[in-house]
């Protein structure tokens, strides 16, 4: 039996929350520059407990099978004997994996920020927000029911809003925070409706019960809910699709991805935490959490998940090849990698070998968290040194930042899928799953992986090679120990994480899945990756005119990709021109003339009534008595004569 203490479990999310409360209340007065240490130590404790929990959970399988367990389930609001809103903690392979990922990356970011954010005016506030975000994210992955996940989903949205808008005196940061908030909010509306539909169909909000009722063909709930339909599509399909829209918003899937590149306005460690390893994978996590429902009840929606994922992966990779802001390149690369995770789920089935895609997706989520956080933190170190986000200002930095250079190289190799780095194993697993279920998606994925290698090394060469050595002010380019330690630790993760026998722990049905690397199969993707790297080297190792020549050769396409295929402009056009003119203007007219008119009428009416009844409140007791008596008699008359 597992030796899990519930108090200890609760400490995992509540220690970061304690950090938020303590630093929020007393950070600026008492802790000041020490605030970072408070947050970091609490986070460290949370991380250690999470690792311990994972150890306990994964060493106590029942014959290789991992059960879903709900050690804490507390009735929060009880509406009736069947319907209640609970707050609970659910442990299953993916949530246990996620708490490790979230606490690990958050801890790394906490440590890194000790150096990166040093001397910031609102340093304690920054750590308080980090604590709030980590708490929300942990609450999200540990949720035992849909309503709880929705609450934490929104909390994650709010705390990421606070973090993206941290530099609130910069208009661009404020705009970016607003954009991220509004776009994801728009998707969350779909999510909320989806939750309502699914919970109505299943008659419960609880994940375990919901999955059981909606996946067993005999259950009466499933039979009745299949009879509801809207626009020729069953209600359940609508529900699942709307839930996916919520997930797509948070995970920046096309066409709801537009907020992600702008969100890079936040401090770089924040990008590493939110936009690489945790919040953006919440959508993937959500689909995985409800995977049996998607797979069994609404396979059509799962197809959509697959195609949206594959398209986003390729689409983002093309844009990433043209961007010059290094954080934006990483943002598009994140979108592309999450596309991988999504389509891996889309091509997956439920049990045994069929479920390879599920395992691969979670595996990639895990390895991606390591190397993408590493990339962001490395980019942060570079930005810290160069004081610019643009790769034109960089180049030849390898001598001044040897450690950053080395770890960045490791991360690039990992994301490019070069063995034996972590990304190789997870990407192979995904490609393998795609190959067996959907050939078109497989080819898209394969080309994308070549592109990935190309744009990542374009980034790498542009930062560290390209130009002769260049010092930027100071002699030594690395940040302090606090900034180097996370780079090294995550670098080790990016090298070693791939060797974990992931299928043994995480699979769609809880039974172990044997994953093997097929060397013959790997030849093609790896050689494409190497080709991408060589191409990048040919273009960017030394400064030359080849990139410009190719860019002008591909004139139209290059421009379109450089402008992110004008998606932002389309949104602008739709919102500013169409919605504004066709809906906004008439609505404004209606509002001004009809609604305001009514309100003004109500206002002046209220005034008039108020002035009228003011006389009632004359201050004369004898009049009060008269009103009293009249009212009493009127009531009596009403009930005796009229409403007998």
């Amino acid at each position, binding site marked *: 039996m597992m030796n899990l203490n519930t108090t200890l479990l609760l400490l995992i999310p509540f220690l970061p929350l304690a950090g938020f409360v303590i630093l929020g209340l007393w950070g600026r007065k008492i802790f000041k520059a020490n605030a970072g240490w408070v947050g970091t130590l609490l986070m460290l404790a949370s991380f250690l407990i999470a690792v311990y929990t994972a150890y306990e959970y994964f060493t106590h399988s029942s014959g290789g099978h991992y059960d879903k367990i709900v050690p804490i389930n507390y*009735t929060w*609001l*009880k509406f009736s004997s069947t319907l209640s809103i609970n707050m609970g903690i659910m442990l299953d392979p993916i949530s246990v994996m996620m708490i490790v990922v979230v606490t690990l990356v958050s801890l790394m970011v906490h440590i890194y920020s000790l150096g990166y954010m040093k001397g910031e005016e609102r340093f304690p506030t920054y750590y308080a927000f980090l604590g709030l975000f980590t708490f929300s994210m942990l609450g999200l992955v540990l949720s035992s029911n849909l309503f709880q996940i929705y609450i934490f989903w929104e909390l994650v949205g709010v705390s990421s809003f606070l973090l993206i808008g941290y530099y609130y005196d910069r208009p661009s940061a404020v705009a970016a925070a607003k954009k991220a908030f509004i776009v994801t909010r728009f998707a969350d509306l779909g999510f909320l409706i989806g939750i309502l539909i699914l919970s109505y169909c299943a008659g419960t909000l609880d994940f375990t019960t919901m999955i059981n009722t909606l996946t067993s063909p005999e259950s009466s709930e499933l039979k009745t809910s299949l009879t509801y339909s809207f626009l020729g599509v069953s209600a359940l399909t609508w529900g699942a699709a709307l839930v996916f829209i919520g997930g797509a918003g948070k995970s920046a899937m096309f066409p709801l991805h537009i907020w992600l590149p702008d969100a890079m306005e936040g401090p770089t460690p924040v990008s590493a935490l939110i936009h690489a390893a945790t919040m953006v994978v919440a959508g993937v996590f959500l689909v995985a959490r409800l995977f049996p429902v998607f797979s069994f009840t609404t396979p059509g929606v799962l197809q959509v998940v697959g195609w949206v994922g594959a398209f986003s992966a390729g689409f983002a990779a093309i844009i990433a090849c043209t961007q010059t802001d290094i954080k934006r390149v990483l943002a598009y690369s994140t979108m592309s990698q999450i596309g991988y995770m999504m389509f891996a789920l889309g091509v997956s089935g439920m049990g045994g070998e069929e479920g390879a895609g599920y395992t691969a997706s979670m595996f990639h989520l895990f390895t991606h968290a390591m190397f993408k956080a590493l990339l962001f933190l490395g980019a942060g170190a570079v930005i810290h040194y160069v004081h610019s986000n643009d790769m034109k200002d960089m180049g030849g930095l390898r001598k001044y930042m040897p450690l950053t250079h080395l770890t960045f190289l490791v991360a690039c190799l990992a994301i490019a899928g070069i063995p034996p780095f972590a990304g190789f194993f997870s990407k192979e697993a995904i490609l393998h799953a795609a190959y067996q279920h959907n050939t078109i998606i497989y080819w898209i994925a394969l080309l994308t992986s070549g592109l990935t290698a190309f744009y990542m090394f374009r980034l790498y060469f542009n930062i560290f090679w390209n130009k002769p050595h260049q010092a930027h002010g100071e002699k030594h380019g690395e940040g302090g120990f606090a900034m180097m330690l996370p780079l090294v630790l995550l670098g080790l993760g990016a090298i070693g994480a791939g060797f974990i026998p992931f299928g043994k722990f995480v699979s769609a049905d809880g039974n172990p899945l044997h994953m093997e690397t097929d060397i013959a199969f790997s030849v093609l993707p790896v050689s494409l990756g190497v080709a991408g790297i060589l191409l990048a080297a040919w273009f960017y190792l030394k400064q030359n005119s080849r990139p410009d020549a190719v860019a002008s050769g591909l004139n139209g396409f290059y421009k379109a990709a450089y402008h992110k295929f004008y998606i932002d402009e389309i949104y602008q056009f739709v919102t500013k021109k169409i919605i504004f003119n066709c809906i906004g203007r008439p609505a404004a007219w209606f509002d001004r003339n009809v609604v305001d008119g009514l309100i003004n009428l109500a206002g002046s009416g209220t005034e008039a*009534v108020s002035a009228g*009844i003011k006389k*009632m409140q004359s*201050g004369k007791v004898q009049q009060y008595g008269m009103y009293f008596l009249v009212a009493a008699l009127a009531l009596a008359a009403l*009930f005796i004569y009229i409403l007998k």
Partner: protein
Amino acid sequence: MNEFLTLMKSELLMTLLIFLLLFVKLGKGVKNETLLPLIQVLLLLNLIAGFFFNKTGNLFGDMYFTTPLMAFQKSLLNLAAYLISLLCSGWLKKTKHLPEFFMLMFSAMLGMFLLISSGNLLMFYLSLELATIPVAAMANFDLERKTSSEAAMKMILSSAFSSGILLFGISLLYGATGTIHFSQMAGLLDNSPLQILAFVFLFTAFAFKLSIVPFHLWTADVYEGSPIAATSFLSVISKGAIAFVFISTLYRVFGAMQDTWYIMLVILSIITMVIGNLFAIRQQNIKRFLAFSSIAQVGFILVGISEGGAAGLASVVYFVLIYIFSNLAAFGVASVISDHCGKENINDYKGLYKTNPFLSWMMALALFSLAGIPPTAGFFGKFFLLTAGGAKAEYWYITVAALNMIVSLYYYLRVVRAIFMDKNEQPIEKIGISPTVKMAFILCGTAIVCIGLFGKLYDYILSLI
């Protein structure tokens, strides 16, 4: 004898406190600085004692009876009394006749306890008077202020008038049923015109005490004129106690007339919410403002009461609990400010945040809770009231109530805006808050934030019924 001691525990403790104060007064006289902490400790002990040995039983041939729910209701009133003694300690320390003030307060509470437990009309009437007359004296406690005397005068005259009609109703009821015992009366009601007339007259007494429109006219004048300690007592303890009695009288005694009082409650609750809100929008004086807003709150309580069953009862008790913390916190802030500089106008509160962030946050929290903004406790209180009221499936009724919540949002936020956003050349200067008061504020604040998240509490109240 033993049973008498346990069943009447709350009343006996209250009597003990009254006598204790009497002896203090007769003796050499104790300084307020020593007496007040003593009273606070005694009130705390009294509050704690209220949670033990609660049983069901009756005494004196059905004149008095009690249940664990009633004991819980009395504990809520004790809690509110304790909070008032802490929050208003600034004013209390300054008052010349501290023992008398508490003696009056405890007498009124004794009346309320007996009222909650009364088993026949005689008990009911006597304890109602005991619960009212001392409060009028409390309203008069700012002896040097004319408005205070005016408030007391208005209160005593209005309630005398109300008592007259109540007595008329009681005598009609006795004439119609031939009994004054509630337990026997319940079976003898048949909706005859005479009984309806009697019931309406009885109803007006409750309506008067609860400030249901149009029986509310005394409220604003009395609230404004009285010292804040008396005002908060009136608006929280009196209202709570009468709401408890009202609901149990309606459900237990007049259950047969449910069709009549359901309609009556629907009509009066809508009028009460609307008029309360309309007046609250216009007020400038913070005490008058809180008076009208509390009238609107009573309208919401009526919505919950209209349900007529366990959910209605539980939601009202739950709401009163939350209302105690929220309203007392708001009155507490007003009290601290008024003690310090005598300012009671909402315009004076402009820019308060710059000088007194703690008070400002407390006020904001209290007003958010009163307005029912999630996730403060007030939201859950209103939520359960409206769910209870919605059980009859009269959705338009719940919609009207919800619309009134939105209107109330406007005027509560108006105060918050004045505190946080409006600029002021001469804001109220920084006020030092004593640790006792601060502790009480923190207690209220914690309760406002946490009660809603602690779902078991509502289940606990439901289990008492």
